[in-house]
């Protein structure tokens, strides 16, 4: 997994609460068996005025000029700003893949759906919980001065705005290390193979029916 480094990026303000993962990446794009290529359909229903005709190849879609990500200023945005409960709903990791594939590295919101939050860290993508008051300030700044930039420093757990405001954030130590070091979760767990086998042996004595073959 890629390593998360300190960076400065443009904030794209998406002033909506309860943005669900169906909205982030609609179901018609979940049929892919790959992890890549979802960025062009990120927020598809909000981003395009027309339906995607899957029977035709390479058709130009009609962008919705009012949608934030369609403004040229935000084509290179790396930080998404949203309201409460971002990423609620379905467990589809495709939501994180789509945000990442578009070019986002982090999302700032007062709260997140649990599964989305957990999925993010498996993909080098950082969801940051800020106070609603701080989110208000960032919406205000990014709406009054479009292209507003902030620096995200994960190691020291703070965000610094281009007008020198500083917001601290909390994050579990384990999740932080995982992003900073870009660790392979499965390899780490497999280091505990002996403990897993021991657990299985003890459990099989106590609850043998759980070890019956399907």
């Amino acid at each position, binding site marked *: 997994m890629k390593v998360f480094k300190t960076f400065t990026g443009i904030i794209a303000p998406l*002033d*909506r*609460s*309860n943005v*669900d993962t*169906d*909205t982030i990446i*609609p*179901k*018609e794009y*979940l*049929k*892919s*068996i*790959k*992890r890549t290529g979802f960025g062009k359909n990120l927020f598809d*229903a909000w981003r395009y005025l027309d*339906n995607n005709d*899957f029977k035709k190849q390479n058709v130009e879609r009609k962008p919705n000029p009012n949608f934030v990500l369609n403004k040229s200023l935000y084509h290179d945005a790396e930080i998404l700003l949203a*309201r*409460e*409960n971002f990423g*609620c*709903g*379905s*467990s*589809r*990791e*495709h939501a*994180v893949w789509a945000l990442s594939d578009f070019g986002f590295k982090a999302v700032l919101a007062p709260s*997140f*759906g*649990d*599964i989305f939050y*957990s*999925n993010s860290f*498996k993909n080098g993508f950082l969801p940051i919980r800020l106070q609603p008051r701080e989110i208000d300030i960032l919406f205000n700044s990014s709406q009054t001065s479009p292209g507003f930039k902030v620096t995200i420093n994960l190691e020291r757990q703070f965000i610094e705005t281009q007008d020198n405001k500083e917001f601290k954030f909390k994050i*579990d*130590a*384990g999740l932080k*290390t995982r992003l900073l070091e870009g660790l392979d*979760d*499965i390899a*780490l*767990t*497999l280091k*505990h*193979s002996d*403990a*897993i086998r021991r*657990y*299985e042996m003890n*459990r099989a004595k106590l*609850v043998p*029916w*759980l*070890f*019956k*073959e*399907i």
Partner: protein
Amino acid sequence: MKTLYDKLWDDHVVHDFDDGTALIYIDRHLIHEVTSAQAFEGLKLASRKPWRVDTNLAVPDHNVPTKNREVIEDPISKLQLETLDKNCKDTGITKFEMLDPRQGIVHVIGPEQGASLPGMTIVCGDSHTSTNGALGALGFGIGTSDVEHVLATQCLVLKKDKNMLISINREITKGISAKDIILSIIGEIGTAGATGYAIEFAGDVIRSLSMEGRMTICNMSIEAGSRVGLVAVDKTTLDYVEGRPYAPKDNWEQVANFWQELKSDDDANFDKVIEIDASKIEPQVTWGTSPEMVISVKDTIPDPLETSDVVKREGYKNALTYMNLKPGMKFNQIKIDKVFIGSCTNSRIEDLRDAASIVKGKKVSKDIKLAMVVPGSGLVKRQAEDEGLAKIFIDSGFEWRDPGCSMCLGMNPDQLQSGERCASTSNRNFEGRQGRGGRTHLASPSMTAAVAIAGHFVDIRDF
């Protein structure tokens, strides 16, 4: 002094890490076609093999057509289904084929087959895995990276949730179902009300509900923000599990005794307790684009201006625009185009019985373009046919389909067209959930069935 969640957690800890997380053993892994392909690919790329092949069970459900199943017209859906086939064959994982009578929605077939059992940890790359919590099992949805992690290690690294007790007491009134109970809870606590908590549903009402009703409630825990919804084991649980194909057969009494301990201790401590007076619950219908936007069928569509919270007010405005509704409207003024009875929330035999009892001897309104019933599994379908329910639906003008997720999320051809409005027994009324531009109203099976006959929502208590 432990809650049921504490007990299930403690029983599955392989290793406690210093940072407050733990390595948790997973007893059962359920797999479907949409969230598994990339996980199998990841395994292959890293030259890893499944840790324990015989505890996985796979079934195609999201993409499968619900009629004319012999041909899958969408080539991308077809590839995804074939990829699941290939991955299961390559690894030796048991899979129910689409035409196998045991095929169905993954959260329906787990309990139905006895593949989901009390006391287990159960995961699946699908947020409605919480359904399994009705059995007194720790079931929760995971993303694809975790699907790969479970395949490779039979474990997950997790941080323990806090404990929430939702105690539902006094009696529900006539016409009220499990769906109304969970919708009204979501309306009360909101879609993020239980984020970070494992919910245990308890109280007299839960005790008197059938297993299927309990599954409906646990299923929608995720719509209240919680990955986990639990119900303690009791006689209802044991009677349900006994005799199921994968349920233990030897020493049943010993096993049953063991499972009866799967309940919270009397003095267990919950971080949050919510009391619900069930006698006050009325038939629920969602009006907006989030499951928390739900009201009694008697109420009028709310006015955003009456909400003091600015963010909420904007949310209400957006929802009204998308749903093409105006404050003050009544539900019987809102014309419905399609009716969908199905999904992992409400597609079991009792749901179909409820719906059939409403439509028996009546005809689907000519204003309804399509009314369809999609049973949760092939076995539910067969049972409904044996009981004469299928005939009741067909005679009144419903389409009687083959099992799958269908129009709950429309990954198969069952979708709403833009602007169409649907009364649905499913679980999510998000924008575009049932088809781009489609509008969803969630309700119970009997309320939804009544829409098919009336052409609009009615109070089931007066129907």
